[in-house]
């Protein structure tokens, strides 16, 4: 279990992490989601003891990271897949990690197989690796000590869809055996695919957290009519508040059946009517982080 209690970190006048509290539970995959520069990496560096927080406590399984003896045996960490010596072979990178942890060389072969790096690839120097291969190597580096907690910063970055699918399976299995997984991403789609729980962060502050299905449930209904303006008017007349969403669509907190009835009564032709699942979560992500993102989101949403 990873626990963050009122953690803050400032760099000069810039508050990178602002009074952040959350828990990543064991047996679950927790997605740490936020736009670039939201404070995800700083938070993860604080977890790994690389950065000291100004205030608050970060613990892993009840310990401060630096107090864990031979921490690689308990906590697997991947902070940056590119932070490897370009001149070392993939196998050598893992060998050094295994050596530091006091593990036999046999773990290296096992891990290379687990992450799908072939013996030929393992003999190549890291500078010749694609980002996806570096991610696999970084994940192997995190897993080699057989930890019960995994902290991965943007692990899906550079993986192809098959790679993301593979990683989802790997992390699911890890969590199913009671492990704790915290992975960060700036892409909602990735977290949605992999995580059980989600923590949304924007401008150093936690803006939402909870089980993924609960966050999804708040999304309401998505409707699109042949004549969007007419549907908007009809819904307004029926006392259903709705907000523009996507390409000519509307998002509302009302049940789909209420929208359908209102549309049928007024003779509006609906072309789409469904629970606003992924789209709703995406909208929430955009709304919650709109003020922090570099692009402005044009449509206004209902209160989260």
């Amino acid at each position, binding site marked *: 279990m990873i626990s963050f209690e009122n953690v803050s970190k400032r760099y000069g006048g810039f508050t990178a992490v602002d009074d952040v509290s959350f828990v990543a539970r064991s047996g679950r995959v927790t997605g740490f989601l936020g736009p670039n520069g939201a404070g995800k990496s700083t938070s993860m560096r604080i977890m790994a003891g*690389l950065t000291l927080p100004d205030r608050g406590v970060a613990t892993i399984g009840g310990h401060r990271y630096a107090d864990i003896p031979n921490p690689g045996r308990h906590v697997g960490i991947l902070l940056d897949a590119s932070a490897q010596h370009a001149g*070392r072979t993939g196998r050598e990178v893992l060998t050094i990690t295994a050596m530091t942890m006091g593990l036999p060389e046999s773990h290296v072969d096992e891990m290379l197989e687990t992450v799908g790096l072939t013996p030929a690839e393992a003999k190549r120097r890291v500078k010749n690796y694609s980002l996806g291969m570096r991610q696999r190597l970084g994940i192997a580096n995190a897993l080699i000590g057989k930890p019960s907690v995994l902290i991965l910063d943007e692990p899906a970055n550079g993986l192809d869809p098959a790679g993301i699918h593979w990683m989802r399976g790997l992390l699911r299995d890890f969590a199913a055996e009671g492990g704790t997984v915290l992975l960060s991403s700036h892409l909602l789609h990735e977290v949605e695919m992999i995580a059980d729980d989600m923590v949304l962060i924007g401008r150093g502050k936690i803006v939402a957290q909870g089980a993924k299905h609960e966050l999804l449930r708040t999304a309401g209904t998505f409707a699109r009519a042949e004549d969007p303006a007419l549907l908007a008017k009809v819904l307004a007349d029926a006392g259903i508040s709705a907000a523009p969403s996507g390409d000519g669509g509307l998002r509302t907190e009302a049940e789909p059946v209420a929208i359908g009835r209102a549309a049928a009564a007024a003779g509006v032709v609906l072309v789409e009517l469904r629970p606003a699942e992924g789209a709703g979560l995406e909208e929430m992500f955009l709304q919650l982080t709109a003020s922090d993102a570099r692009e402005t989101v044009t449509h206004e949403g209902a209160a989260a």
Partner: protein
Amino acid sequence: MTAISTSNASPALGGAAPDVLDVSGTRPIPLTRLIRVEMRKMRDTRAGTWLLAIIGVVAVAVMVGVSVFGDKDDRTFFNLLGVASVPLSFMLPVLGILLICSEWGQRTALVTFTLTPHRGRVLAAKVVAALLFALGAIAVAAIPAAVLALVGGAGDPWADVSVGILGRVLLAFVLGVAWGLAFGAALLNSALAIVAYFLVPTLISIVGGIWSSLSDKIIWFDLNQSSSTLYGTDAMTGSDWAHIGTGVLLWIVLPGAIGTWRVLRSEVK
């Protein structure tokens, strides 16, 4: 259920793993293992392999050169060791610099310091590893020097050799490595540290050359010049040691202190 738990997590299927990590069975990483890891990290990259190979090859080559082309009487063990020490004293500091700086340049410090979240121990392991390489370099120089001296036919191949004299050579090597380590840690950038290391003595001698009134005093600041007496056979005087002492303070202790502070405190990106 009366299990003691501070978690307010909803009951997970099949019971979640305990929220407290049991670390009682895990032994901390011993320093000896960290030293072995650091020595491996010096050897396992192309830059490191080449540097070590070049150090060895050049040391042997200059000794063979002196044996072939030099006077018969110059082929003593101590002379040959002195010849080899010129390239060694030149290159060992670079090894010290790379040992520290490659972690920053290649950003492997991120992994190193997460696997060992006690940076002082990592730094200590690097210092010991560098000193062991210096010892190794002396062995690399001494063994061929002894062989060449034996076959060289000098009147007294073991002239001038004593524990004290060999100790001085060893000290000179150690100072060179420490100088490299200190510059490496203070600058945390291989290119910058190597340039600074080679530029400093040149600048000092230029200053000494231009500013003639200072040239007598420059030895107090010129560690290269003052420590070169260590390779000689004349007895070291108190002022020789004092010159080395001030040089060490200025070029090793001061940047070493700044470097230690930087390594321990700086944000690893």
